[in-house]
Each structure stands twice: as structure tokens, then as C-alpha cells.
């Protein structure tokens, strides 16, 4: 059943590409139908998984390239189900917030759905090569989404994103080729490869290579620079997808491929320098730097969207930090943070890029200050207050549970990481507060420029309300009742840790 998320989405993309250009309304409704169907399938799959106690379930398994042991193998465990659910949510919200796309509407949704289809594919792949194939399929549509429908320096942002992604996937491909050639196993299934027992000497260099390759897309410092420019350049729906699911692709790859297949690559080197004694420490430190650096840079931005862009770098740092804690609670927190950040970042980008920008035509905080948006766009202001609270990690929202678990996990592993990451949280409160204050609740005198533009800002449309509602409900639901997802994630992480990851 879950496999149909992939087929349906790609079929939708193909149909959109074949639609006549002027059928904009039809294109929108088709995209919404496909996205909602995907979400429904994801929810049904999740429910079916729950009935099955979130055991790993094989969905499809047919030989694909017989000579090389490559299978078209789709499988889902608790982690997959959670991120598939996230993809469904992000897809629906993305379509809703793209309702106003007038330029080449059908093509926009074609690329959009192709990207979503690739993302579903990655999250459901049980075979290393299938995963890689879907991962690459997701790269190209991103480029066109940004380059055609983007804004600020869109061609630069799009090309930078595409090249970073492709360099990352090239690193992954090298790792895969070597792992494939040296495992000697006649299957490229993720489970089979994990049991193949690659020599430690090879894992030692394959792990950092593949982890870095995937982590580039997860926005790991110092390879994060594509993220802010890409997010800012992208049209709203694409920023939502980039932050919401594409960055998760990277983190998911780190978990599923790098950590699961090359666990011995994280063994201590035997020498330690400044407290760094293994690749695991290296990546933990990079993740912590990302958390603090992203937050500090976000604090200094003048462009509203850049604030959110850098906040994504900071929040994704928590995911990476959680992953390399290598303990139950930290890794569970990391997966939960993937979901949480996917929803919250999507919401923030939607408010900034769509609800506010489409009406004010500026993202400069200094100009927004003069517009008194809390009075003129109360819906946006209050939605942003809630989303900002979620982003700060206040209790009751999903971010709180996720980041708390990551911090506990990293405390178990190495307290210094937790302390430094804690600084990031404090700065996180500061930049969110600052953006909120400046954009919505400032009482600076209105500028003459604004008067010329007239006072009335367009009313909030139903797709905007529906999208905002959907995402807010998701983060609140998980925040108030985290067991909903934790029950799915925990057994999968346990299996992973039992399977050789230490």
C-alpha cells in the first residue's frame, strides 16, 4: 500500500507535465488530490504499521538488476513511517501554499510532485541502490523549482544547491561502489550489506565519506552554505520542501546508510586531540558548531527568510547531534526532530515566504517593522507566534520533546556537547523573538513609502488557512502526545542499535 505513495506521486507528476498550459485550476486540484492521496496512504500505512507493532515490513521485493544483486526492495520500519508521514504533510501543505502560482502552473506541480515522489522513494527503499537512485531523482526537480519560480538570486541559489547535492551524492556513490565491490555479498539490500561485515579499515574511511556526503544535504556545518541561499531563492513551496523533507533526506541517509552500514567507522582512532578521538566526535563537534553558528548568524540577519534559513541549519544540527550520540534516547530524539523541524520549518517558511511576502513584497525586517503587521495581518502574526514558540522548543510543541531527547542523549555521550548545544537553544529564543518583534509587533512609525502602497493587504485565503492549520495541528499533536511517533521510532532505533551500531 505504501508503495503507491511513490507510483501515485510520479503518475501525478507525469499527468501534470502533460496538462495543457492554461488549465491552472485543474493543475492545482490535481496536485492537491495527489498530495492528499499520498498523505492518506501514508497515514494508512502508519496505522497498519502501528497494528504490526512497527516491525520492519517488506512491501515489494523483486529482482531489478539480477547480475548485481540489486533488488527493487521497498520496506518500512518505524523510522520510515514517521518520515513518510512527514513527507505526506509537507506535500499537502506545499501544494496549498503554492495555490497562487500562475507562471507555468502545471510544470511547477510536475516538478513538485516528481521531487515528492523521489523523497517517498528514498524513505521507503530497502535496497542501497534503490535508495541512491531515488535520492538522485530528487535532485533535479529542486534545481528547476528554484531556478524557474524562485526569487532573490534564484539561478545562483539553484545551481549552488544542485552542485552541493550532486557533490554529496558523488561522495556517497564512491562509498557505495567500494562497499559494493568489497562486501562480496550478492545482495545490495541494506540489511544484507549491514551483515556483510566490511573490513574495519575500509569502514574507517567509508563512514566519514558517506556521512559527509549525506550530511551536506542535511545542512551540516561547514557544508551548509547552500541551505540559506537555496531556501531564500526558492519559491515558498520549494523552501518548505527543502527544509521540510529534503534536508531530512540527508539526515535519513546518514542514519540508514552511513551509520547502519559502516558502524565500525565510528570506532575510536586510538589517539585523541582536543577531546576528538573518533569520526563520531568529529561529526558531533560539527553538529554542535552548526547549532550555535546557525543560531548566531540567524540573529544577525536583516532578511526575514534568511533568519528562517539559518534557523534550519541550527535545528538540523540537533538531528545530526542526536544521530551520533549512538544511544537510544538521542537517536530517537534525532528522528523525532526530523519530523518536528520538517513541520515547523515548513510553517515558518509558509508564513514568511507566502502569507507575508506575497502581500508586503518585502522580506526586509527593517521595512516590515514599519508596517504594523500584527494589526493588519493578525492571522499571520498569531500563526507566527505559535510557530515561533514551536521553533524555540517550548513545551507543548513537538520541538521540545525532540530537542530535549537529543540533549539528554548527548549528555549521556559527552556533557560538553549538551552544554554547547544549550547555548544554541538560548540564542534560538533570541533570534525568533527578534524576528517576531521586528516583523509583527514593532511600533516604529510607518514610512512614507508604505503610505503610497495603500493600506489594505489581501485577505487570508482558504488554502493558506488550511495549510497553516494542518502544520500547526501536526506540531501540537506531536508535542502534546509524543508517544504517537515515539512508539514507531523507538523499536526501529533499538533494532538499529542492536544490529552492531555502538
Amino acid at each position, binding site marked *: 500500500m505504501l508503495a503507491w505513495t511513490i507510483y501515485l506521486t510520479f503518475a501525478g507528476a507525469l499527468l501534470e507535465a502533460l496538462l495543457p498550459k492554461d488549465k491552472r485550476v485543474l493543475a492545482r486540484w490535481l496536485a492537491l488530490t495527489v498530495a492528499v492521496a499520498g498523505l492518506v496512504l501514508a497515514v494508512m500505512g502508519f496505522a497498519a504499521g502501528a497494528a504490526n507493532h512497527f516491525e520492519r515490513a517488506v512491501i515489494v521485493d523483486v529482482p*531489478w*538488476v*539480477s*547480475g*548485481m544483486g540489486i533488488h527493487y526492495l521497498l520496506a518500512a520500519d518505524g523510522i520510515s513511517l514517521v518520515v513518510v508521514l512527514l513527507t505526506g504533510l509537507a506535500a499537502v501543505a506545499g501544494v496549498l501554499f503554492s495555490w497562487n502560482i500562475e507562471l507555468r502552473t502545471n510544470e511547477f506541480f510536475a516538478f513538485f510532485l516528481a521531487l515528492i515522489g523521489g523523497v517517498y522513494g528514498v524513505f521507503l527503499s530497502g535496497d542501497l541502490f534503490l535508495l*541512491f*537512485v531515488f535520492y*538522485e*531523482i530528487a*535532485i*533535479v526537480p529542486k*534545481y*528547476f523549482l528554484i*531556478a*524557474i519560480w524562485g526569487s532573490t538570486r534564484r*539561478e545562483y541559489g539553484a*545551481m549552488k544547491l*544542485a*552542485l552541493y547535492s*550532486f*557533490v554529496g*551524492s*558523488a561522495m556517497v*556513490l*564512491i562509498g557505495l*561502489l*567500494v562497499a*559494493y*565491490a*568489497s562486501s562480496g555479498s550478492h545482495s545490495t539490500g541494506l540489511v544484507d550489506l549491514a551483515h556483510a561485515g566490511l573490513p574495519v579499515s575500509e569502514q574507517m574511511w567509508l563512514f566519514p565519506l558517506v556521512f559527509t556526503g549525506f550530511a551536506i544535504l542535511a545542512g551540516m556545518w561547514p557544508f551548509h552554505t547552500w541551505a540559506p541561499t537555496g531556501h531564500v531563492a526558492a519559491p515558498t513551496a520549494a523552501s518548505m520542501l527543502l527544509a521540510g523533507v529534503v534536508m531530512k533526506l540527508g539526515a535519513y541517509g546518514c542514519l540508514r546508510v552511513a551509520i547502519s552500514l559502516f558502524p565500525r567507522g565510528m570506532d575510536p582512532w586510538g589517539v585523541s586531540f582536543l577531546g576528538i578521538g573518533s569520526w563520531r566526535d568529529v561529526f558531533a563537534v560539527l553538529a554542535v558548531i552548526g547549532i550555535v553558528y546557525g543560531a548566531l548568524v540567524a540573529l544577525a540577519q536583516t532578511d526575514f527568510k534568511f533568519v528562517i534559513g539559518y534557523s534550519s541549519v541550527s535545528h538540523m544540527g540537533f538531528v545530526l547531534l542526536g544521530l551520533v550520540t549512538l544511544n537510544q534516547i538521542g537517536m530517537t530524539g534525532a528522528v523525532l526532530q526530523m519530523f518536528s523541524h520538517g513541520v515547523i520549518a515548513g510553517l515558518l517558511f509558509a508564513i514568511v515566504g507566502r502569507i507575508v511576502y506575497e502581500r508586503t513584497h518585502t522580506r526586509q525586517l527593517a521595512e516590515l517593522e514599519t508596517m504594523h503587521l500584527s494589526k493588519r495581518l493578525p492571522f499571520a502574526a498569531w500563526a507566527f507566534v505559535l510557530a515561533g514558540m514551536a521553533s524555540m522548543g517550548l513545551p507543548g510543541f513537538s520541538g521540545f520533546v525532540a530537542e530535549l531527547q537529543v540533549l539528554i542523549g548527548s549528555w549521556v555521550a559527552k556533557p560538553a556537547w549538551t552544554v554547547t548545544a544549550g547555548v544554541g537553544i538560548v540564542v534560538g529564543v533570541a533570534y525568533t523573538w527578534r524576528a517576531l518583534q521586528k516583523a509583527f509587533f514593532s511600533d516604529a512609525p510607518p514610512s512614507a513609502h508604505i503610505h503610497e502602497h495603500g493600506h489594505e493587504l489581501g485577505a487570508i485565503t482558504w488554502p493558506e488557512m488550511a495549510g497553516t492549520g494542518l502544520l500547526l495541528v501536526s506540531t501540537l499533536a506531536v508535542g502534546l502526545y509524543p508517544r504517537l511517533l515515539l512508539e514507531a521510532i523507538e523499536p526501529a532505533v533499538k533494532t538499529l542499535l542492536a544490529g552492531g551500531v555502538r
Partner: protein
Amino acid sequence: MNYAELFRVMLPETALEIAALVVLVVDLGFLRKAALNVRAGAAALLGVVGCAAALWVMPLQPLGGYIYPSTGEALLATGGTAAAAQIGILALTALTLLLLVDTEFTQHVGEYVAVILMAAAGGLIIAAAQDLLVIFIGLELLSLGLYILTAFAKRSGASAESALKYYLFGGMSAAFLLFGFSYLYGITGSTDLHRIMLGLYMPNAAAASPLLYMALVMIAAGLGFKVAAAPFHLWVADTYEGAPAPAAAFIASVSKVASFALLISIGAAAVHVFDGMHGKVEVITGFHLNSQPVYLGFRNVWLELLMVLAAVSMVVGNLAALAQISVRRLVAYSAVAHAGYILLGLAFFSYTPLSAAAILYYVLTYGLTTIGAFGVVAVVERATGSDRLEAFSGLHQRSPLLAAVLLVLFLSLAGIPPLVGFWAKFNLFAAVLSVSRSGAAVGLVALAVAMSAVSLFYYLQVMKRAYVLAPADETKIALPPVTLVLLAFIALSVVALGCFPDLLRSWIAAFYGGM
């Protein structure tokens, strides 16, 4: 010596030559007064029929490998690599012939098709050749055809200029090749590849001769020119730019397949992988020592040469392509890069048919994709009069289908799955790593993968123009029917072969007795 047997081996070539003569008679005789498009259609059709006839007579070839005239030396191979490459050459030739139908660069369509068919016959000989002299004859037959094809647009100065450059470079490289061959003959006393390899077996004095290095460097230069490997690549950009598009497509595809099939033959002779048709491996020079294959003195030198050529080609090709503003030159430099990847596969050549199959897979799919790319370039050139990047601006609005075809082809060339180019690269690099996981092999594969990341940039530069930028001129580009069908066929094949990589893999594997 059995000439009847030899004739049976040469049946496909004979079929092509007869078809070439028929085309000339029909075009210059019966259709002399007909309109150009009728003549072009008839000539192309007859050419395709000739290719089909050659395919049809291929099963009549005697099976069992090499032909031994009275001297007992091998001349031509049948089956195995030779058969797979010959079928590929015939199929790709037919596709390039169809490109002619909707073009008007020449009045002399009959001669054009005849020259193509004769050059293809040269390609067939090269693909099967196992003897230095036969190799040289095949190469010259092919090359002379290519020089003429390059110059075929008589009204175009660029065409004449590029043909002259190509001819001068080609003549010189042929001289190098012959020089190298003569040394090889001098050292080993044989012109048969397998005898030569035996003569160069490690303990033999010949294997240590410094002349061997001289000979192999000369041969590498000569063959490097044919496959467009850097630093012997200088002709490529000029030729691809100046030649009429269908001729450039022929040079980029068929000539590549033939030359790489030759390199496979050399590699196979060196590692004793003989085309084991029908389970009977006729090993006249190969032997096992303690069940380990014995490598010959030839191999170490050859490995080093190919590694250098591969690395230089990948880097030079990809970096030079970044700076191009003409799409034809961009495709040309990317061809240099692709040659580099394939040479890597040849350098680390496996004892089993794994490498040979992977290289054939790569070069056949590359040829198919490039023909499509030149087809698109030809249509755009006719509509805009230029092959500059700007000419592709807004192609998507002017012809959505053309843009979609170009997108598929270029993404495949860049190696994005699930298109066939990805599997070609993957097969090839996996073959390299299964042969050797030494630092050099892993490092060169890493370089190759990193360079394909670079290549995405320039392919995207074209796609950006096609999809993102607005057209300077919004008139629609009409696709002539034959070109339309041809391009759609190629694009769909690239997608289908990519989604079902087993199709082509198992087809090629069948030539090696199933792998």
C-alpha cells in the same frame, strides 16, 4: 587458408558495401531528377536496409572465434565482443542515417550515405580485427570516411576547415600508430595480437625491451586520437563544431564504438579473455599458472599509459567543457571526459568478461545518447542558425518535446539515475573496483565520480537555458516527422534501458556465454 570461410566472416561488411553501391546507383540513376527530400529519404532508407541486411547475414558468420589462414594466425574474431560491437555499430549507423532525412546541408545525399556505409564497414572490421594489419586497414577505411563526412557541407567554411584539421591530425596519428605497430612486429615477430602478447610474456626478453615502451606509447597516441582521449583530443571540438550534425553524430557514436571495441580486443588479448563463444574458449596463447592467470609484460606498461590517459581526459574534458559557449563544443569536450571514464575501465581490465561487457554497455549507450543530442542540436541550429548556448534559450516554450528530449539525454550523460547513463557509469566503475581496490584504482574512480559531479554543471547550463530563461524569439520550432520519431525513440530508450538496466546487460552478457 580458406577464402570461403573468410568471405563468410566478412559477409556483414560485404552487405554494407553492396548497399553503398545500390544507394549510389539509385540516387544518381533513378532519382536524378527527384526532389532533394525524396532523394534523401530514399538514400537513408536504402542505407538502413543495408544495415538491416548486414545484421541479417551476421548469423551466417562461421562460429568459433578466430580465422586462421595458413599461417595459423588470427585475423578476425566472430561472436563475443566483436559481434556485440558490430550489432551496435550497425544499429547506431542506421540511427545516424535517419538524421539525414530532414537536413539539407548537401545535395549529394547518395554519396553521403554511401560514404557512411563504407565507413561503417570499416568500423565492423575494426571491431573484429585481431591482427595489426587488419586493424590498420579497418582504421583507415573508417577514418577516410570520417574525413569526407566532416567536409560534406561544401557550402560551409567551418566544415572544410574542421575536415582539414581532422585529416591532418588523423594522418599524423595514423603514422604514429603504424610506427608503433612496426616496433611491436619487430619485437615479437608477429602481427597477431595474441602471438604478440605471448611474445611479450614476462620472462621473454622482448617484454623487457625499451622498444616496447616506445611502441606502446606510439600506439596509445594513435588510438588515443581515435577515441578522443586527452592530450590527443584537440581535433574533437573543431570537428564536432564544423561537421554537419548527422556526420558529427556518426563520428561521436559509431567511430567510438569501433575504436573502443578494438581497445577491448587488445585488453582481452592481454588478459587472455578470449571470446568464449558457445562455451569453447580457444586459447592459443593464454595459460594458467597454479590456476592464476598469467599476465604479460605488456600489461604493466599498458596499464600505466591508460591510467594517465584516463585521468588527463577526465580532468581536461570536464574542465574545458565548463568554459564552452557552443553546445557542440560542449558535447565534444564531454566526449573527451566520457572517453576518460571508459579508458579507466580499460586500464583495470578484468580476466573475466566483466570489464568488456561494462565498456560495451557504456560505449553503446553513450553512442545512442550522443546521436540524440546531435539530433536536437541539428533542429535547434536549423531554427536559430546557431548552436550557441543562447540559441537554446526558452527551448521549452518553443518546443516542449525537444526540450524534454534534451533534458533526458543530458541528464543521462551526466549520470543521473534512473537513466541509462547512470547504469553505464555504475557498471564500469564497479568493474574497475572488482578488478582492483588498490589506491590508484579507488583514487581514479573517486576522481571519475567527482568529475561527473562537475559535468552536471555544464549540462545544467544548457538545461537552464532551455527551461529557465525566456526565448529571444517565441516562434515554435517545428519538428520534422522523421526526426521527431527518431528523437522520441532515443529518449524513450534511454529512459527504458535505465529503468530496466537488465535488458541491455543481459543482452551483452549473452555474447560472453552468459557471465
